[in-house]
Structures are given as C-alpha cells and as structure tokens.
C-alpha cells in the first residue's frame, strides 16, 4: 500500500508539473494588468498604414462604395454580424470606423476588436474615440493602429482622420489639432475633394467649444468637402447642423444594428456628391 502511495505521489507530481509547464509556456492568458501595453502582437492588417496601402493599390474609380460605422465598444456579437453583413454587400471599397473601438480601455479589448475587424474583406480605417483614450489606450491605439491624426489621398479625395476627443484631454486647446489640420489640407493642388472622419462632432458638448468656430471654418473652406463622418452618438443621422452645405454623417453603433452605406460620385457636378443608405442587419 505504501509502495502504491509512493508511486501515486510520483505520478501526481509529474502530472502537476506537466499541467503547470503546459499552461505556463503555451498560454497567452498570463496578463500583467488589465491595462498592460506592449504585449499584444499587433496584426499588421489592423494598422491604418497597411489599409491605406491596400487602397492606394486600387485603380481609380468614378464611384466609391464606402461603409461607415462606429462605436463597436463591447458589442462583439453585433460587431460579428456587422462584419458578415459588410462582407456580403455587393461592393465595399473601404470601411470607416469612427472611434470607440473598445469600451473600458483594457488591453484585451484591443485584441478582441482587432480579431474582429481583420475579418473584413475590405480595407478598414479607424479613428480614436474617447473610450479608446482610457488608461493606456492612447499608447495602445498608436501601437496597434497608428497616429491619432493622419491624412492620405485616395481617388483624388483627401481623407483627414483626426482626434476630436477634447473632453478626454481636458479641453487643453490642442484637441483637435488645428495646426495639423491646416497643414493636412494646405497642398490643394494634390487633391480634388475632402472627406473628414472624427469621433466627437463639433456640435457636441464633448468638443472644445473654444475651437469650434475655427474647426468648422476648416471644414467649410476645405476643397470640395464631401462629408464629415463622426460617431459618439450611437445614432444614425445625416444633416447639415450649420446650414452651410457641409453634410455631417453620424454613424450608428453595431449595437443598434445599423450601418451607413455611402456611394460617392467624384465625377458628379452636384453639390452633394454622395448617396447614403442606412442598412439594418
């Protein structure tokens, strides 16, 4: 009996050690902190730079088909359905996600949203939202997606994607970065149209009211502004809040099971160069 017990102890010890070794070496659930940074192997397919590269390889098109969404936050069930819906649309040239990719600012949420967004067949571009700034979020966003403000020209359209989360930065006068915006629009000879995406719209209380006039001046006077896309409100809307001919598209959240499908006609002489359909899924 003693011999049996000794044999069992030996086997038990071996089993215990194997369990520990297997779990310890093979598992990425060993988290240092919910807000840890620099531990996730960021897929290159999630970076804005990679997706811009995909867009620039496309031939010029007279009509672009774009999907706008935003605020996926912690609604991954609905996000999964949205990805399937977008992948099933007849043509999607690019997907724009207008911020609040995550809810709580944890590192693991940044992994989850990446895992879902890279399932999109089309290139996708993101902007930082207020939730994305929480804890180490600003650092995480930049590690995974890229700069907080960026612009590029595709299909003769200057896309200006920028941080407008003023309240998150305590209304410090630098968010949005108007100097950067001016620079990103200054070379007018290199593009024909402008399209803006941000998270917090300028007529929201979370936008720095001291910068509102100058900011909307940029939108109004940019070269052939097509539209300004934003999120934050979780409700679809398309209107001209300043009655100045500048269209504001507020994107809904996947939690509301609605996305905006926008056709842009760059060859049209009409003032409004797009059609927008809100699709439920």
């Amino acid at each position, binding site marked *: 009996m003693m011999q049996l*017990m*000794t044999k*069992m*102890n030996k086997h*038990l*010890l071996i089993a*215990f050690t194997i*369990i*520990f070794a297997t*779990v*310890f070496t093979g*598992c990425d*659930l*060993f*988290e*240092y*902190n*919910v*807000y*840890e*940074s*620099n*531990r996730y192997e960021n897929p290159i397919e999630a970076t804005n730079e990679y997706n811009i590269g995909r867009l620039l390889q496309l031939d010029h098109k007279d009509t672009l088909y774009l999907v706008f969404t935003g605020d996926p936050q*912690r*609604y*991954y*069930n609905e*996000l*999964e359905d949205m990805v399937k819906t977008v992948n099933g649309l007849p043509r999607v040239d690019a997907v724009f996600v207008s911020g609040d990719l995550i*809810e*709580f*600012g*944890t590192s*693991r*949420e940044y992994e*989850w949203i990446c895992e*879902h967004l890279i399932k999109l067949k089309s290139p996708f571009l993101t902007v930082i939202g207020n939730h994305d*700034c*929480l*804890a*180490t*979020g*600003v650092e995480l966003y930049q590690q995974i997606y890229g700069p907080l403000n960026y612009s590029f020209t595709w299909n003769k359209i200057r896309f200006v994607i920028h941080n407008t989360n003023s*309240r998150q930065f*305590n*209304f410090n006068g630098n968010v949005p970065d108007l100097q950067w915006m001016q620079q990103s629009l200054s070379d007018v000879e290199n593009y024909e149209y402008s399209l803006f995406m941000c998270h917090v719209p300028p007529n929201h209380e979370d936008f720095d009211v001291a910068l509102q006039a100058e900011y909307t001046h940029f939108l109004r006077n940019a070269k052939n502004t097509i539209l300004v896309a934003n999120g934050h409100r979780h409700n679809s809307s398309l209107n001209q809040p300043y009655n100045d001919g500048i269209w504001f598209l507020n994107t809904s959240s996947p939690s509301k099971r609605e996305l905006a499908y926008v056709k842009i006609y760059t060859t049209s002489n009409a003032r409004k160069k797009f059609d927008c359909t809100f699709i439920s899924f």
Partner: protein
Amino acid sequence: MIVLSFLFSFPASGQLNEKGDSLMSRRWYVPDGFVATYAGGVGLVSTGVLYKISKRTEATITVGYTPPKFGNIWTTNLYTSYSLVRLNFSPQIEIRLKAGAFLNYNIGKNIYLKWPEQFHKYYYWWNSALRYGPFVNLEGTHIPVSGKWNYTLFLHCNTNDLYLATYRYSYNAISFSDILVLGVGIRMDIKNP
C-alpha cells in the same frame, strides 16, 4: 524583506518561554506566510503576505508592479479564499482547490479612483482603478517532515468585473476562456500557526 523578517521573528502560538509559561498567541498582524506571483492581472510580479482566518479560509494582501515597458502600473490587492477540496496523497503532499474573490487597486497614469472633474457623474459608469472578481487557485503543497514552513506552487485563474460585463453582451463572439486571467506563484506558510 526586512519588515517581513521582523514580523516573522515573533514567536508562534504554543511556544513556551524560558520559564515554561505559555506565550501570548501570535499577534494578529503577524502573517502566516508570504506569497509571490507572476502575472494574474496584478503585475508582472506581485508579492505579499497571507493570513489564515480559519482552517479553510484565508486572506492575502499583495503589492504588484508592471514595469514601464508594459504600462508602469502599481497595484495593491486583497484576496479572500475558501478551500473547497483538499487531497492528501501522502503526509508530505497536499493538493488544494480554493475559490474566492479579489479586489485590485490600480495606480497608474490615466487610471482614476475618482474620475477627473471634466467628466460629469456617470459619464463613465465603472471605476477605472478598482477591479474585482472571482478566482480559483490550484495548489500543490509540500509539507516537509521537519521545519517551520510548508511550500506551495499554485496556479491562479481569475476574471474581473470589466471582462464579465463584456462577456455578458458578447458571449457568442468571444469565448469564456477569452475573459480568464492566469497567474502562477509560490508561497511559504507556517505549519499550524
């Protein structure tokens, strides 16, 4: 370590002084053991002390640190656990399964116990600095025949309020194992305190 040495220098209950009289029970603040953990959501490394409340229940207080490369975050943590299952395979080897709850306080940049003033009440409904949740520990303890200490290797598994709040709405898109946090550690505790 100097503080711990000082605390452990106090005599344990049951010992007699040179006159043969019983000494006082160990002072309540003297720990019954100490612990060091890798990961577990409270630091690259965390270390602390444990107190045995009863035969099956104990409380552990730790301090953890995540270095600047990974976030530069300090934590202080409280765990309370109950021993669910104990298997003695020999007088020297014991396996335990424990379950309990933890409270974790995070200290770092942009992590707030109270949201800054620019956020009105309930702008963000959760607490940024405090995390709490359930955990289980699988422990293997070696009880030497002689000596004052038992030595334990343990595997720790927890989840927290934020991950549970996410899983509640996203149980189809993310798996339950996605919201688990693992840690591994060692502990030394006094035999029969």
